[in-house]
């Protein structure tokens, strides 16, 4: 199996290393690249499967990329018991902001023909508000690379415009993402909780004018 190129992830790595930020991949495990999401009731995302062939999760800048075991444990936890979000079954959380209840999740139902799934920002502090940010996982890493290059402060430095509003200009060029924002189930996701972050609502309104 030929590994998918991941130019966005490569750019993120270069940006983090250039800034001296954490870049700590965990060693890949046997069978990596054959990520099985059957227990999650979905087909695996193609970019994440390619990424698993390189590393089984890790800490990258402020992002905790879930190891395979964590991915298969965390998502079922989000889907059962009290406090379960009604939208949890439509998402697969694959990464989190270190120390915070901010997550990156794919939407398996909206995969393209190559198996790439769009990515949303899931804010569990805000009753599970969802903001679409990229049409694929690798594109999401491109956005993180841009954010790190342009806005991320050195440790202890000044505050920053927050991701992903900081890179809204690039998100506005992701035509597939904007198209998907008018599709079911993204419409349901956008209606959940307090709704998407204001910058995305503005971006979407501008795109539809």
């Amino acid at each position: 199996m030929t590994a998918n190129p991941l130019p966005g992830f490569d750019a993120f790595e270069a940006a983090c290393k250039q800034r001296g930020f954490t870049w700590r991949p965990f060693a890949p495990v046997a069978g990596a690249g054959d990520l099985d999401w059957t227990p999650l009731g979905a087909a695996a995302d193609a970019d994440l499967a390619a990424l698993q062939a390189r590393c089984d999760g890790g800490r990258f800048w402020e992002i905790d990329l879930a190891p395979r075991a964590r991915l298969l444990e965390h998502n079922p936890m989000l889907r059962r018991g009290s406090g379960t979000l009604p939208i949890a079954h439509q998402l697969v959380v694959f990464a989190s902001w270190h120390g915070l209840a901010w997550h990156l999740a794919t939407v398996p139902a909206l995969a393209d023909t190559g198996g790439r799934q769009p990515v949303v920002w899931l804010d569990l502090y805000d009753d599970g508000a969802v903001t679409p940010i990229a049409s694929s996982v690798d594109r999401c890493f491109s956005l993180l690379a841009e954010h790190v290059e342009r806005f991320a402060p050195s440790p202890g430095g000044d505050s920053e415009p927050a991701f992903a509003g900081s890179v809204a200009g690039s998100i506005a060029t992701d035509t597939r993402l904007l198209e998907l924002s008018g599709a079911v189930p993204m419409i349901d996701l956008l209606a959940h909780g307090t709704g998407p972050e204001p910058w995305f609502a503005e971006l979407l309104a501008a795109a539809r004018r």
Partner: protein
Amino acid sequence: MLKDFEEEMGDLAETALSTAEKKTLRGAARDRLAKEKKSVAEAFGDQPYEVHHRVGLEYAHRFPDMDINDVDNLVALDPAVHKRVSAAWSYFRKTGKDNTAEAVKKVSKIVDDEFGGWFDDVAEEGIEEQLEAAFQESVSRIDKLVRT
């Protein structure tokens, strides 16, 4: 710059925080907790945790004299614990009785009582039933509180 921002927050004491303001404060809270409570990093290691405000940011404007990001107001929670704690607060918000600082403080106390054993520590496997029981007890006590 962050200090300026936090001072500005003080000036906005009568206004609920915006989404962007809350994001900035959450990041700062995470950094402060890591810096001032070293035991958190030791306890969790590579295990995930989520910073939680015992008095939430959505109520910061009701406590103008309080540093909402004071380390005493911050705890690190296992995501499975945080999910139930958030659900308890969400239940309280939906009662519509969360409009006074006194009620918010009482609910913060209820959450401390029911979930405090899991604050700043990794939750052991197989605690789902205990978490559910803690959530149900929290809801029961919130019901009693809002009826009084």
